[in-house]
């Protein structure tokens, strides 16, 4: 990587950031649609949880590549680490409380019956 002209490196970093941000926002969109479309609480938790950590991770790492080795990158790392640890625990507690509260996971709905939104 050393012998590249500086402006080429800057352009590559921009391309990497662009790709990461687009992928991250795409995943976040998939998460939003998943939360809306899934039949019951547990599958919604599944849909929300998956894309939260990866979608948020991609967006934050995309911002990190943009901000270089500065103070902003440290804060972004803190946010990323915090989201990685707390989202799964919150989802776990939510699923357990829902189960204890008596919310029944819906069995596989019949083929062709569109799940009511």
């Amino acid at each position, binding site marked *: 990587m050393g012998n590249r002209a500086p402006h080429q490196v800057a352009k590559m970093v921009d391309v990497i*950031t*662009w790709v990461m*941000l*687009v992928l*991250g*926002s*795409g995943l*976040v*969109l998939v*998460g*939003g*649609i998943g*939360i*809306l479309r899934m039949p019951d*609480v547990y599958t*919604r*938790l599944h849909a*929300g949880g998956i894309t*939260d950590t990866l979608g*948020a991770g991609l*967006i*934050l790492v*995309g*911002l990190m590549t*943009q*901000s270089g080795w*500065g*103070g*902003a990158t440290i*804060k*972004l790392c*803190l*946010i990323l680490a*915090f*989201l990685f640890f*707390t*989202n799964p625990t*919150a*989802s776990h*507690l*939510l699923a357990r*409380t*829902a189960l*204890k*509260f008596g*919310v029944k996971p819906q069995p596989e709905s019949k083929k062709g019956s569109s799940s009511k*939104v």
Partner: protein
Amino acid sequence: MYTLTAAALLVTMGLVLARAILGPTLFDRILATNAIATKMTLLIAVIGFLTDRPDFLDIALLYALINYIATLAALRYVRAGQSVASNNGEPRTPPSC
């Protein structure tokens, strides 16, 4: 680049808000609140980069912290209420959780 990400985040928050309104059970609403707050954290960070103000990242970090505490408090409140409700009214000895 940032406006695209911010727009996608806003659309997602709209979708999740629809789930919060439609959500039949209480836990859908708690889940939707948690999801919206996580998206808001990302939105604050992206807008911080959009308007070139690095101090937005502290706000985003604080927002992520508060969101986590809010979700836990809501769930703990539901669990406390549930043990009273299922004990037809009179409070039960506090659960040893």
